[in-house]
């Protein structure tokens, strides 16, 4: 099937630093794509470029076959919904108000009771309906996150009336949710994907990623280093190397979904830089560790001299 959102050779450079380097990705309707990777790998930047929030330094993003930069904001809003990380609200709106903002600026004239039922439905699905009239700033972090999820659901359900295909982009949607709500939100994302929406989510929980993803995308230092089915990706030593931890992979009985068991301590990570810029303390610690350090070879991970980070581990 043809991807609904398609990006080719995306680069994003900020003051000479390559935040995103040659990323190529396609989001296919009906599939749930999950992006994993350590902090600063460029996951959120990738999502921002795919949503059109920031223009790429080079490369191009297409949504529904149309160049993103040529699509007006209101039309884009009907085609894709975005849930970003931790939105800070300037004024004391209520949960209901915020959910409604999902479609208020989309230019879809809606009757009052019709709008009400769409909002109520979304609030119920996000399990925040009981707090509809509470002020946003009086909510806990997880409740705030669910409020934004309700807003995104509103946006999708109104956008669906005029668009045949849609995408949903989620940046760490479960970051502050409790276990039950994490699963509820991921179930909802799964349902949305099953209804024909192309869904992309950034997650830090590898087990959640393994359990829900159709496609897993691994990012490191601005590059997409692997793409594919979770079972395949998690099987090798790639993920362990990318995150710099020792992992043991197991499989759970139902459906043989792989799960990950971290053990021991985090690996020591040496931050190597070009010699001219290398701070003194880093050299000292490198010298000290030099004879204890061994580098783990991994066939799947392409070694690139320009990548500024390398992993090392003490035995």
């Amino acid at each position, binding site marked *: 099937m043809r991807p609904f959102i398609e990006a080719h050779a995306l680069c994003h450079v900020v003051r000479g630093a390559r935040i995103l380097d040659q990323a190529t990705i396609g989001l296919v309707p009906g599939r749930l794509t999950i992006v994993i990777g350590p902090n600063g790998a460029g996951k959120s930047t990738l999502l921002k470029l795919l949503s059109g*929030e920031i223009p790429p330094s080079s490369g191009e993003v297409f949504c529904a076959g149309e160049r993103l930069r040529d699509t007006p904001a209101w039309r884009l*809003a009907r085609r894709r919904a975005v849930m*970003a990380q931790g939105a800070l609200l*300037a*004024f004391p709106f209520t949960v209901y108000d915020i959910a409604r903002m999902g479609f*208020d600026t989309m230019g879809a004239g809606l009757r009052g009771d019709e709008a009400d039922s769409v909002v109520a439905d979304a609030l119920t699905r996000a399990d925040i309906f009981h707090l509809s009239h509470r002020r946003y700033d009086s909510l806990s972090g997880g409740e705030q996150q669910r409020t934004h999820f309700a807003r995104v659901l509103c946006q999708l359900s109104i956008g669906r009336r005029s668009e045949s295909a849609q995408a949903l982009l989620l940046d760490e949607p479960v970051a502050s949710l409790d276990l039950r709500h994490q699963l509820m939100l991921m179930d909802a994302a799964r349902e949305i994907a099953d209804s024909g929406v192309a869904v992309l989510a950034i997650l830090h929980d590898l087990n959640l990623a393994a359990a829900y993803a159709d496609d897993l995308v691994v990012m490191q230092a601005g590059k997409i280093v692997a793409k594919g089915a979770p079972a395949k990706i998690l099987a090798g030593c790639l993920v362990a190397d990318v995150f710099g931890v020792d992992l043991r992979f197991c499989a759970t009985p139902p459906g043989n979904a792989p799960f990950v068991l971290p053990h021991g301590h985090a690996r020591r990570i040496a931050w190597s830089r070009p010699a001219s810029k290398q701070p003194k303390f880093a050299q000292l610690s490198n010298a000290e560790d030099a004879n204890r350090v061994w580098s783990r070879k991994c066939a799947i991970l392409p070694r690139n001299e320009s990548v500024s980070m390398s992993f090392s581990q003490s035995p």
Partner: protein
Amino acid sequence: MILLLAIATVLLFAAGLATGPVTVSPSRIAAIVAAVVERGSVADGDYESNIFINIRLPRVLLALEVGAALAASGALMQGLFRNPLADPGLIGVSSGAGLAAATTIVLGGGLSASMVGGGFAFPTLSFGAFLGGLISTSVIYAISTRGGRTSMATMLLAGVGLGAFCGALTGLLAFWSNDQQLRDLTFWTLGSLNGATWSKTMTIAPVILLLVASAPFLGRSLNALALGEAEAFHVGVRVQLIKMVCIALAALAVGASVASSGVIGFVGLVAPHIVRLSVGPDNRLLLPLATLLGGAFLIGADAIARKLVAPAELPLGVVTSAIGAPFFLWLLLTRSRGVM
């Protein structure tokens, strides 16, 4: 709520017409208006109706316009900057207009001295101030716009920076000025509706009507902006366009009101706040209500400024702050509990 405030505005409008050094009773007002409508002009010898038609009516109308313009611009700026402390002064209109006015008063003294007498030298001073406000806003806008995107944080800082610079120059001009000029300058920086004429009222009316008429259409977009600029874009707001429209509208309206009646503080900051405290932050309601409240508030303040020390009058800025600030603080104490 809108209805209530509209009624209050009409009542205050009538009260504003009635009060002043010469009190015109409501029944007299009706009679005068009826007579003027019937004849199409003011009776020559009629002292009372002359005062009413040519002095008081334009003045109260001007108060309504200026108050509405300041309050609506304040609401727009608070929404745009996502900051409840924002006021129209932030985009440099007031400081630029102030500097231009000071320049006209002090350096252009010979030119306009004869006209400064009772009110302000309307064409030169007002036009200069209006232009000064627009120029400084354009400078701030240019400084904070890179690659087609305006950074509101940069704009805030640029506004503070340019404001300080304009303030320094204004201070320098005040230092050079003689006593009469200094008095004019002081009066101007505190604001006054003295010198309201039909021509003034009508000149600034289109600009202010433009703002008042378009503000309701910006409500939804400003609501979405409360989520953040990125989120507003995600839900379909053309963020850069909204920024440009809001800044342009506010600069024009505030420039026009400062040009016609000097710098009147507090209204633009507080009118939106009072509305927000009573009906919540929804800009679709906030914008029209704040506009009405600003107009009503300034009519009332102007009536007090005229009545309190009649036949002299207090600077309007003194009255707005002296009444508004304690009321606002009281409102904060009793209602808010962290609303801001």
